[in-house]
């Protein structure tokens, strides 16, 4: 289309049109207020309101983002979806896009550099629900893949619900397999339908991507590029849970257990394991515990910061605006086959695409090929090389050490790799190689000394990496880092441009190579000469790194020096006695020392601290205004002071900065300048910004957060790495190596890189156990109710565990009443025993994690409310008894209690009869045991049952069973405690039936009531109104019955006529009735006929439906046999 040429538009330069246009243009400059002005007042009002509302929607609760701005950890991007949806293809496409590498076996986390400020860690989540839970807790961005040709599957919804309960990360939906839909209109409809469903699930307007077919095993490049654009501009909102816990996604795992121990125990001993990864969340501190989901709680044995294996380009290495192509090649994926090399348990596989011939140097070779060729090139043994090598003490030393011929010890050291001499040896070798690339690389560069399990590192820098582990100081780390990066550049991409840069760097190094102690010799001398440098106590060292007692530290330098010497010299030490002095009290205030107080008798001494009071004049700059007593004066003084102090604070911060010269004049000028500055600022504050919208709550909070973060950064800016780690732990973004002891051997034995290993830091409170009360709601898609005392699997905090909850509801704020089942569509409380999580932590619960049940697996969701060591749940209990003797309002009740003691406990308790007569327990009776006297509001019957309603408190069972899925060989086959019903089904047991609990027909004899007889005597005494009005039946016929009636003839006639008329009428009605009956019968007949017809039709319809259903189930069963859970119709 584009090849068609168009005639260019030519502007007229004369005539009215040209003039007109120019005129119009003139007006167009700047913002045209009229264009957007509202037409009417009402409209203006609406517009204003809309703007305000829109402003409000952008506000979120200000949260602190603990991820540092410089050098943040890589963003975790999880690719999630059901099996067969194209996750791996997408992962490979993305890696290819970023790192220009084709992975054949992409497993585990893959870290790449995506921009100057951002790295990405991709991880593919398999279809196992345990993985989905773990990934959901750490992913920053989820690429949720949906098969467009099939639609949403249950796993997708399950995953979204998991995300919801653990803090929602960003989600981008991706529809794949759209090429399978051939018809354009169907495609459009499908897209629309799926998008609508996706939006209701996440939010209106959530991003949904469409991927069409696969080309060369990848998705089309344009589509992937579009996707990466969205990824690169994605902003992340801090999530509360992740912002209060340190965590890392392990991208490498090594087993450090001595081989011999493993061998002797036949692989069953507990292992020592190191995990590698970027710290995320908050600072990771040594001395805390961590939880590895699927494994358990483990204490951190040691943590070391390592050089970044996939560093961001630094400011000087990357001066361009865009990321250079070279940086794009950085990839860190120890668990996959970068460069065509894959490590198995006992073999190394090199994947060579196409044909391979040795000596063909033009074609750039993969890492694996290079390695094999290097191995072939070896002409010396290790022994020889060690003998030849020149060991220099420091990288910059000019003379090499003479090697001792004792090779055994040398080799030992080599294998331990803890010797700095060897390290420098390696360094020098690397440098050698940098200089002349023609020399083939020595074999030992690819050699490994630690046995590798399944994981791998970049082979070319194994040595450097391990040596970084043991680097002594920060500067070492930096140097090694440079060397490594350089090495990679040189080896991987022969690039001429590099040379110049390298040389420059080397020069820099030479400059640096002046020993540190020499560097600022002059400065120090000057300092010493000035004599200002007073020897101070290094409190941090004294407190944390010495074994001196606190008293020794306080009492002064001499004693400390002495004792520190003692430490070195003598093996035996005199036990310090005063620490054990039993008379030393743990007291709040020190006793007053009379002697030291004596100094205050001196007037001069008293005057010397005058400057500490507001009235005391201090600096000349303060002026003579000190004698005033006004409040304003005071305030001003104080503010001035405050500023001064602040300045001092700043001074301390840049410790390394130049020390202020104590020249009187200069300081005075400085002070003056400072004061002016303050005044100016004050003025500006008052007058510069008159309308200045008063910072609202939101902005205020944000400013506060920003100020605190700036302070956090500034406080430890100049401190050396070791001290910094001591105080603040390992910052997010650092690449660390975590050593764990006593790890179950199954974790190593059954290690599978496709299942993520997460190391989640625990807060002190979270290591404890207790009763956790949660608000819970059964998930509306889970189709069964949950039952008290049935085990449930919780995903709470980092953990996944099984516990036994008791459900309850708040009964009028008086008691927590147990529920047998969770209510429908309503929240209730649940209390279970387990590891504590902070209140307000969300969780989701499962009945089973297996794939055997086809329905929705998340059974409930909720939030933690309370943590305690006891639970206050009660259930109702009714005690029944029967009266055995009844007085007027008093009755003796038996069979409710068995002893008098029990009765005593319930004295005063309310009782009730079945008929509703209320009463009270009074006192126990001596006989029979457990009988008592009770009073009622009315006389009760002998047949009444008396019951007492009471509450029985129950405690949840102390059952906690962590889901140790990572320890299994088949990770999705974890089984916990089964439900009671399941146990019965599996064991073929019948539900126990208590004979007393069965429902039987109740036979009740008809009640017979005796007639009420009022004694004659009493009757006589009663007033007339109350007398029973009982009259004997009439025996003799009455007058009306007795008399004879004789009628007149007319009368008789009239009566006869009336009789006849009545008879006629009767007959008429009878006939009419008869007719009606006839009609009714006819209608009934008709209706019956119709009904029969209708039934026939219904029967036919039902038959049809059943036939369809039968076919469907049959088909499903067939598919079930074909593939596991979630079979799919695949149109191919």
């Amino acid at each position, binding site marked *: 289309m584009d090849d068609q040429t168009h005639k260019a538009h030519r502007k007229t330069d004369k005539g009215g049109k040209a003039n007109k246009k120019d005129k119009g243009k003139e007006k167009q400059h700047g913002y045209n207020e009229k264009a957007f002005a509202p037409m009417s007042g009402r409209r203006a009002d609406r517009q204003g309101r809309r703007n305000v509302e829109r402003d409000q929607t952008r506000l979120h609760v200000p949260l602190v983002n603990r991820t540092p701005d410089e050098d943040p950890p890589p963003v975790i991007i999880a690719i999630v979806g059901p099996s067969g949806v194209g996750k791996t293809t997408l992962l490979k496409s993305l890696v290819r896009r970023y790192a220009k590498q084709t992975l054949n076996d992409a497993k585990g986390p893959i870290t790449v550099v995506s921009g100057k400020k951002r790295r990405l860690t991709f991880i593919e989540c398999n279809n196992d629900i345990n993985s989905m839970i773990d990934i959901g807790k750490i992913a920053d961005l989820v690429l949720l893949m949906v098969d467009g040709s099939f639609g949403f599957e249950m796993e997708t919804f399950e995953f979204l619900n998991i995300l919801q309960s653990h803090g929602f990360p960003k989600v981008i939906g991706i529809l794949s397999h759209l090429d399978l839909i051939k018809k354009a209109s169907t495609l459009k409809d499908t897209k629309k339908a799926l998008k609508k469903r996706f939006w209701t699930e996440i939010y209106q307007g959530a991003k949904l991507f469409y991927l069409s077919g696969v080309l060369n095993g990848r998705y089309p490049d344009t589509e992937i590029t579009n996707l990466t654009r969205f990824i690169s501009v994605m902003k992340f909102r801090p999530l509360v849970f992740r912002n209060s816990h340190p965590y890392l996604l392990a991208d490498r795992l090594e087993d450090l257990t001595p081989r011999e121990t493993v061998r002797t125990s036949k692989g069953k001993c507990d292992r020592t394991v190191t995990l590698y990864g970027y710290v995320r969340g908050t600072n990771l501190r040594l001395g805390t515990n961590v939880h590895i989901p699927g494994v358990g709680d483990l204490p951190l044995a040691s943590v070391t910061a390592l050089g970044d294996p996939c560093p961001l380009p630094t400011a000087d290495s990357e001066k361009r605006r865009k990321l250079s192509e070279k940086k794009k090649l950085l990839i860190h994926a120890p668990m996959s086959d970068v460069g065509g090399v894959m490590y198995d348990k006992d073999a190394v596989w090199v994947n060579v695409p196409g044909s391979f011939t040795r000596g063909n140097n033009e074609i750039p070779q993969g890492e694996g090929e290079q390695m094999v060729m290097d191995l072939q090139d070896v002409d010396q043994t290790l022994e020889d090389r060690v003998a030849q090598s020149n060991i220099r003490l420091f990288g910059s030393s000019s003379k090499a050490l003479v090697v001792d011929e004792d090779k055994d010890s040398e080799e030992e050291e080599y294998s331990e790799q803890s010797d700095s001499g060897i390290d420098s040896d390696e360094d020098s070798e690397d440098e050698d190689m940098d200089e002349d690339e023609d020399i083939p690389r020595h074999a030992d560069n690819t050699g490994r000394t630690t046995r590798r399990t399944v994981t791998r590192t970049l082979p070319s820098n194994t040595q450097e990496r391990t040596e970084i582990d043991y680097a002594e100081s920060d500067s070492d780390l930096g140097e090694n880092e440079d060397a490594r990066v350089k090495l990679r550049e040189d080896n991987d991409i022969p690039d001429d441009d590099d040379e110049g840069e390298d040389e420059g760097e080397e020069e820099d190094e030479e400059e640096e190579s002046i020993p540190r102690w020499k560097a600022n010799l002059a400065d120090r001398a000057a300092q010493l000469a000035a004599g200002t440098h007073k020897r101070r106590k290094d409190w941090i060292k004294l407190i944390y790194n010495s074994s001196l007692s606190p008293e020794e530290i306080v009492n002064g330098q001499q004693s400390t020096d002495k004792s520190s010497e003692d430490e070195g010299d003598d093996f035996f030490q005199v036990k310090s006695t005063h620490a054990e002095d039993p008379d030393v009290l743990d007291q709040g205030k020190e006793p007053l020392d009379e002697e030291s107080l004596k100094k205050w008798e001196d007037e001069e001494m008293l005057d010397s601290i005058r400057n500490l009071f507001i009235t005391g004049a201090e600096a000349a700059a303060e002026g003579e205004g000190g004698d005033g007593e006004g409040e304003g004066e*005071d305030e001003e003084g104080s503010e001035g002071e405050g500023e001064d102090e602040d300045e001092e604070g700043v001074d301390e911060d840049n410790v390394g900065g130049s020390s202020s010269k104590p020249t009187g004049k200069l300081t005075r000028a400085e002070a003056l300048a400072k004061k002016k500055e303050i005044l100016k600022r004050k003025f500006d504050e008052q007058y510069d910004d008159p309308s200045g919208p008063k910072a609202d709550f939101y902005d205020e909070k944000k400013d506060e957060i920003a100020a605190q973060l700036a302070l956090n950064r500034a406080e430890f800016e100049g401190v050396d790495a070791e001290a910094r780690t001591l105080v603040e732990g390992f910052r997010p973004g650092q690449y660390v190596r975590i050593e764990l002891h006593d790890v179950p051997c199954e974790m190593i034995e059954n290690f599978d890189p496709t299942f993520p290993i997460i190391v989640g830091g625990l807060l002190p409170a979270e290591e404890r156990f207790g009763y956790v009360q949660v608000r819970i709601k059964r998930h509306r898609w889970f189709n069964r109710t949950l039952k008290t005392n049935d085990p449930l699997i919780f995903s709470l905090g980092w953990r996944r565990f099984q516990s036994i909850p008791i459900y309850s509801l708040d009964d009028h704020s008086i008691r927590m009443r147990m529920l047998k089942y969770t209510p429908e569509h309503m929240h209730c409380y649940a209390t279970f025993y387990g590891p504590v999580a902070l209140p307000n932590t969300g969780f989701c619960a499962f009945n089973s994690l297996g794939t055997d049940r086809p329905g929705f697996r998340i059974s409930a969701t909720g939030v933690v409310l309370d943590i305690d060591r006891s639970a206050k749940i009660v259930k109702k209990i009714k005690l029944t008894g029967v009266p055995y003797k009844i007085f007027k309002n008093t009755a003796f009740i038996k069979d409710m209690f068995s002893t008098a003691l029990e009765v005593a406990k319930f004295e005063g308790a309310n009782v009730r009869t079945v008929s509703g007569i209320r009463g009270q327990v009074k006192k126990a009776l001596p006989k029979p045991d457990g009988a008592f006297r009770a009073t009622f509001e009315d006389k009760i019957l002998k047949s009444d049952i008396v019951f007492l309603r009471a509450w029985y408190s129950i405690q949840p069972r102390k059952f906690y069973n962590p889901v140790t899925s990572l320890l299994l060989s088949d990770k999705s086959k974890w089984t916990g405690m089964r439900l009671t019903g399941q146990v019965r089904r599996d064991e073929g047991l019948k539900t126990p039936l208590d004979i007393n609990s069965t429902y039987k027909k109740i036979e009740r004899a008809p009640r017979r009531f005796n007639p009420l007889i009022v004694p004659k005597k009493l009757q006589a005494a009663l007033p007339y109104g109350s007398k029973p009005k009982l009259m004997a039946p009439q025996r003799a016929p009455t007058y009306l019955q007795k008399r004879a009636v004789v009628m007149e003839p007319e009368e008789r006639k009239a009566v006869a006529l009336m009789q006849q008329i009545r008879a006629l009428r009767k007959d008429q009605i009878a006939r009419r009735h008869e007719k009606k009956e006839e009609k009714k019968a006819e209608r009934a007949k008709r209706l019956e006929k119709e009904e029969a017809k209708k039934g026939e039709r219904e029967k036919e319809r039902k038959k049809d439906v059943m036939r369809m259903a039968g076919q469907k189930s049959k088909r499903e069963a067939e598919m079930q046999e074909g593939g596991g859970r979630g079979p799919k119709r695949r149109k191919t």
Partner: protein
Amino acid sequence: MAQPISFIHFSGHQHFRSRLVLSILSGRHVRIDKIRSEDKNPGLRDYEISLLRLLEKATNGTIIEISVTGTAILLKPGVILGGTLQHECPLSRAIGYFLEPIIMLAPFAKKPINITLMGITTDDHDLSADILRTVTLPHLQLFGISEGLELRIKKRGASPGGGGEVQFLCPIVKQVNTLNFVDAGKIKRIRGVAHAVRVTPQFSNRMIEASRSILNRYIPDIYLYSDVYKGNESGKSPGYALTLLAESTTSAIYCAEAISEAGVAPEDIGLRATRALLTEVEKGGCVDQKHQILVLLMMVLGSEDVGRCRMAEPMPKTIQFLRDIRTFFATSFKIVPADISDPNCSQLLYSCYGTGYVNANRTLA
């Protein structure tokens, strides 16, 4: 997998209270042994037992095991409960001994605490009720614990008879604020309470007079109250004391106190208190030495930000406390001289990274 139960192990009877407090706050189990094992009268003292009982009352699920000889205890802490409590303190120690740990724990309880303690209100080992009311509680306010925070001195009780009674009310918080207090300011006012129970009220006036004779030279804003309790409210023993506090422009507070002694004139007591106050003022910093531990603890428990505070040199118990904090919370302090340029400045700047301690005991909804 079995839950690894790790005990933190200490020996010696010193720093008993702070260790118990740290254990309860962090939830770590603690074992303390060799408690006066070499002494003629080995084992825990009555007041220590009483403190343990008080902590048991204030918490739910705490398990305390004391060995037969009383020289070793094992504490498995539960959750801090709060609520309305009452405790009779033994006469061997003042109420301050028991109230200090309670003050550290109370903000992190499940319910706001309302505790009544009975015993000696003022003695010469522990912080008196006056200092706790006027100095310790304002220190808690630095960390955002203020609404409903109150200490009422209902009755005074001098040693040895006791008979005093105080009521402590403390709200609960979700998280304490991060402290950034590096500016000590200048002293703007001095306040004081002189009390005399079961002696002539003139004593308090005499103490005030003596104290004013020194302090008047510095600032005019001095109010020293004479607080007299009569009859039943004045406890069982005679005694008098002067409590002084100096407040700076940035509301840093220094305090000192002197207690009546047999054979010492009230004027001398007044002078003694005044001079002790001047010593504190001279040491400077933003927090006086008696409250170092409280402030450092609250700094550690703050959110995961850098908290800074300028203080005088640590006392021996503070040093031990810093070490204990490291064992319990794995956090260390950065301690540098507050003023690099001034070689005579002995003040230090304590800064630490808060552990992000959240009150897990708090009930939601």
